[in-house]
């Protein structure tokens, strides 16, 4: 039997969430800088998205296929959509949140997270040795949580997959979906031709 004597394999799940949040936050920061928006809002929304999506993806991989599909797409929707809501609310106020934009970002994020779930499932199936170490469960839960917060190669690899790619894409979705507020407050003049 091969033992992960540090107990990290319990998933390195908390380390993954923390790393997902940090990478998501930085992705959100970059997207906000590109978009000329508040950097704090970008970081917060990216971090929230990263944490939710990373957690959803991590747990999805342990579930049966149907459960994994629902959990990954739902966490993608909530992470992407709510991150976008937070970003808008910080920048423009709650009354001016473009909810269609958030539903769109959430939908795209759900599809993309589902795609990552499919890819990671295949990686797990084809190369189980990457994740093959067995957790030493004789270590106390607190120690395992502590260990999982250290950045090991496994944590980094998983964090990169769970958090980084999806939250980066999520930030990009933010930039590409049309914002209804662009017409908000502008007077639309329609010229009528009377025959």
């Amino acid at each position, binding site marked *: 039997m091969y033992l992960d004597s540090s107990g990290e394999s319990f998933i390195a799940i908390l380390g993954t969430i923390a790393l997902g949040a940090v990478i998501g936050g930085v992705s959100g920061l970059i997207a906000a800088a590109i978009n000329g928006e508040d950097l704090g809002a970008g970081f917060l929304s990216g971090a929230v998205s990263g944490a939710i999506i990373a957690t959803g993806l991590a747990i999805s*991989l342990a579930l049966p296929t149907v459960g994994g599909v629902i959990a990954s797409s739902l966490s993608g929707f909530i992470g992407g959509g709510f991150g976008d809501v937070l970003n808008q609310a910080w920048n423009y106020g709650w009354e001016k949140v473009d909810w269609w934009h958030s539903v769109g970002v959430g939908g795209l994020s759900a599809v993309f997270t589902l795609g990552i779930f499919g890819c990671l499932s295949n990686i797990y199936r084809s190369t189980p040795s990457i994740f093959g*170490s067995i957790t030493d469960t004789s270590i106390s839960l607190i120690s395992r949580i502590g260990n999982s917060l250290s950045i090991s190669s496994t944590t980094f690899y998983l964090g990169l997959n769970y958090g980084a790619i999806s939250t980066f894409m999520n930030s990009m979705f933010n930039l590409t979906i049309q914002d209804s507020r662009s017409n908000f407050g502008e007077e639309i003049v329609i010229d009528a031709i009377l025959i």
Partner: protein
Amino acid sequence: MKKQKTTFYANHIAIFATIFLLVISYPLSFFIVFIVPKSAIDESQDFARYLFASICFSVSTLYAIFSVNLAFSKVTIDEKGIHKSLFKKYFKKTILWTEAKEIKLYNRVDTWIFISKVPMEGMTYQQLLKHKGIIQVTAVKEIKDLIIKYSSIDIEKKD
């Protein structure tokens, strides 16, 4: 003398998954519907707001309903074998130690113990989950100790 615990939740990650999704989506739905102010952009925004909240609420509720068996089933380990059921009544499954062929550890996000009536060689994780002659439990120390105590089969790592 303290009585040894013999009944455990079978799938800790599934419990975590259910609680995680409900804890995030229910308060979020409540917040969006009852606390967020009415949109100042146009009326269709409020429809989108309710749509967002209802997707969060309904999908997580459906997930919770369909994962009750997965998340809240318990296993009992005794001298006869390992018994799995939901609320002691539903989805009952038993593998007697005399029937068990293999007991293996498998790492997939968390570490699992699979107790099987059939050889598990060449089976993928999803195949192991679906097979009726296999019971999956989270590999906690107390469960491993009980299996070692009652079963003569060695616990091996699955390749």
